[in-house]
């Protein structure tokens, strides 16, 4: 990780996360752009197996400049797009808080 990307504002985070999911699922960016908070992810999309989820989380760490611990990861945060976005937002706030 060479730099923490500038992700000021909700729109930038939303764009980054949708872009990443589009890359993982091989989706047209337009389809991912239509994701809403209730759009189902893990469990709804059979192609999203544990290896793909692990790759997604590792890429989130790189792009958002966050660290995701094993105990952070649970089924609920991967259930919907909204839950994953909430998780990313909380992790970003944590990473920016001075130690």
């Amino acid at each position: 990780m060479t730099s923490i990307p500038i992700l000021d504002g909700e729109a930038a985070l939303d764009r980054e996360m949708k872009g990443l999911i589009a890359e993982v699922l091989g989706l047209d960016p337009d389809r991912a752009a239509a994701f809403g908070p209730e759009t189902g992810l893990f469990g709804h999309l059979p192609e999203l197996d544990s290896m793909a989820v692990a790759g997604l989380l590792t890429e989130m760490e790189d792009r958002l400049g966050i660290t995701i611990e094993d105990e952070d990861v649970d089924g609920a945060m991967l259930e919907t797009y909204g839950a994953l976005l909430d998780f990313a937002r909380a992790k970003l706030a944590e990473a920016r808080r001075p130690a």
Partner: protein
Amino acid sequence: MISSWLCPADAGGSPREELLIAFDRARSARVLVLPAWFDEANKLRRFTLEVMRRLDRAGIDSFLPDLPGCNESLAPLAEQSLDGWRRAAEAAAAACKASHVLAIRAGCLIAPPALPGWHYAALSGPKLLRAMLRARSLAAREAGIFETSEELLEIGRGQGLVLGGWSIGAPMLRALETAEPAPGPAQRPVTQAMLGAGGGLWLRAEPDEDAAQADALAALIAQDLAGGAA
């Protein structure tokens, strides 16, 4: 196109025959291709061959050797080490009379440093392990077993681990914990962004292909070779 190469044995045993995919028309540019590893190897296999086909059409020979323990190899994966693969990569370069190397993702960890060439989206050992340990820990949790990456790593350092179905021996695992790609003086890093839009195919949940990305990587290599760079 399908051929084989002889990989020297580590402990003075007889060499082993390993598979080699070769576009060999005895041209002056001969690129050794060191592919991605483990799960990423599957995701990037087609892309790798598509780049080789484009290089062939651009007048460039290329060679994709199986490393011991991979693909069709009779050697057990669990017995392979990082140093062993480095020696195998050197031996493959010599066997193919390679003039250049194209290393992909974790393949960059074993690129012969003296060869000019390209490191595409190099992946460090710690990042490779982090994703594979996380995948195992996620899969275990679905089965109601809680094992953390740190616990798994501790076990793996002593006895090796099966991660995502790949048997990784203790020496390989310990070496990967600190392995960083170190491009040689005439090896040029190629980032994903240099291949245009769309993410790296290793990120895809299922193996896929991307003709535009394969075009871009092959064109970049052909241009470097034409310009005398790399």
